[in-house]
């Protein structure tokens, strides 16, 4: 399903899925250097369930963006599936992002003008799937997250919990290795939050690497490992 001409999406099976070494990220803010991440060293193996915790402003969202290849480190190295992401150009990074990483955001981030099926199709579109293939796959995924009845609905016609299910289905569209969830239950009531968590944990049990950024201690309890980040540094893991 994934069309890759450059070979960047090929992951080495034996290596850890994610390795960060002395990774730093800083922003220039009116001639003052603001260090958001300092000397991050993190290794995550395939199939792990990692919770990233920390107070707001500690840099956990930046770390998540870094893992998801949305942001680039100021210094240090980042290997994703044995590939040094720092050396790839924007096109290749985009390809990896689409093929290997599934994002689940706190605010769902569905495209309002598209219906459920079309939203799920978006990542497949950028990997060059055929229309029929992607529509079929999107339907399967929607049914899997329990939205088989609402394929033609717009996001605005769905509840928060349902929207987040669409987002999860969309994250799974290209069968990624890593699912990155940024406060996935943050905008949901406890009941639908619990359901969403159940789906995510279920995915982890099926072998997906799951990385969740959260404030919620309950979520962290289920995780195999907790990475606590404070003031741009990893405090304990």
């Amino acid at each position: 399903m994934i069309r890759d001409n450059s070979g960047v999406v090929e992951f080495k099976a034996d290596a850890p899925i994610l390795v960060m070494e002395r990774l730093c990220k800083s922003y220039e803010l009116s001639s003052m250097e603001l260090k958001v991440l300092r000397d991050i060293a993190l290794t995550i193996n395939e199939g792990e369930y990692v919770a990233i915790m920390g107070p707001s402003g500690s840099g956990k969202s930046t770390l998540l963006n870094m893992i998801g290849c949305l942001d680039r480190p100021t210094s240090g190295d980042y290997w994703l599936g044995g590939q040094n992401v720092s050396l790839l150009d924007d096109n290749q990074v985009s390809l990896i992002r689409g093929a290997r990483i599934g994002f689940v955001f706190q605010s769902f981030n569905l495209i309002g003008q598209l219906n459920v099926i079309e939203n799920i199709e978006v990542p497949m579109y950028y990997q060059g799937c055929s229309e029929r293939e992607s529509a079929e796959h999107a339907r399967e995924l929607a049914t899997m997250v329990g939205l088989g009845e609402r394929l033609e609905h717009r996001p605005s016609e769905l509840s928060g919990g349902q929207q987040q299910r669409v987002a999860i289905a969309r994250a799974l569209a290209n069968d990624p290795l890593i699912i990155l969830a940024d406060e996935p239950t943050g905008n949901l009531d406890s009941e639908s939050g619990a359901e969403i968590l159940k789906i995510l944990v279920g995915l982890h049990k099926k072998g997906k690497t799951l990385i969740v950024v959260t404030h919620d201690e309950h979520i962290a309890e289920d995780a195999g490992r907790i990475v606590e980040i404070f003031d741009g540094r990893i405090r304990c893991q």
Partner: protein
Amino acid sequence: MFLFRLKRTAKLGIKSLWMHKLRSTLTTLGIIFGVSSVIAMLAIGEGASQAAQEQIARLGSRNIIIKTIPPPEDKEVSGQNQSMREYGLTYLDAERFRNSIRNIEVVVPSRRLPQQAWYRNRKVAVEVIGTVPWYPEISPIQLRAGRFLGSIDMHHRQGVCIVDENVMKELFVFDDPMGQDVKIAQDYYRVAGVVSPEDLGAAAQTPGNDTEKAKAQGGANVGCIYIPLTTVRNRFGEISMQYSGVSGRTMERVELQEITVKVGAMEEVLPTRDMLETLLDRFHKKNDYQVIVPLELLKQARQTQRIFSIVLGSIAAISLLVGGIGIMNIMLATVSERTREIGIRRALGARRRDIVLQFLSETLLLTLLGGILGIGLGSLVPIMVTHFGRMPTIITGTSLLLAFGISGAVGVIFGLYPAYRAANMDPIESLRHE
């Protein structure tokens, strides 16, 4: 693969435009009007030029027309006394042309008199043309029935006439004019033939000439009646009364209103014109003639047409430019409105190139749609102009292609910047954008 992507991108574009129907329509309007004005203006310009050139061509590109005009310095004198004004071309002039300029093949002297023609109880204003049997050589008229003037008519100063189809329609209505008698002034003339109308239109009319007199004497004439030159000279004489409000009446003596000469080839027209002018200059002390060269008029008309086209084209181009800027403006607004969508798409694996393609295709679709609708509207305008304004218009295939091509180019040019702006947005900031 590429084509397949293009198809999906186009589909995506159509969908997103369809979601903002009103906005898309309003945006497209600029292009619609731009394109239709290009087409309409080119069609009207082309039609006007074709009509003018046809009219001039009917005058004959190998002809030189010398017309009698009232000399300007004579006008003041005529205000003071009632003496006879004598001016204009003479039979001698015609003779001189024939004898002294070798290039000239045909010399056609003619008199043109505004008159009224009677048949039974009907009366119409006509132009009586007293001329020679070889008049058809310098005129586009064609024989429809009977015969044209002959040398026997000339020799015996026969009371015969040839009417054109316009006169036939107005004067005879349902009757067959052949062999009927038409009364002009005091005399009767038997109709010997019918010819097609000369229909020289505006190009043949020169200021201070018979046409204006005809209008003064009872409206525009409906057509021409051809009578042998000798008959006209005999029956109408050469003296006419001029009534003017201030000075009462004056007498005028004019032998010929017009001499038309025809040369062998188009290259000879201008040299012959110079010779004619030299010749005329020697024998005419007063400036009482005017030389018209249809070929030159044709060249001038083409020149005018070129300027006309440039002016019209610039106006149309400006309206397209305005349409393009309108599109760019809307696309920039769309891009900033959809910042979050762009961020989401980038996070889901869209490359910069995909984003560029997405927005560029939307702009392109808008402008091409505008182009197609503009071609429709732009083709309709000339048809209406022809129908209601009675002006000839010509829609050429080139102008359609040009307009369509321009609208596409406008789409690309004005779509690129918004598309690049969309593609170069930082995905993280776009995702945070509300």
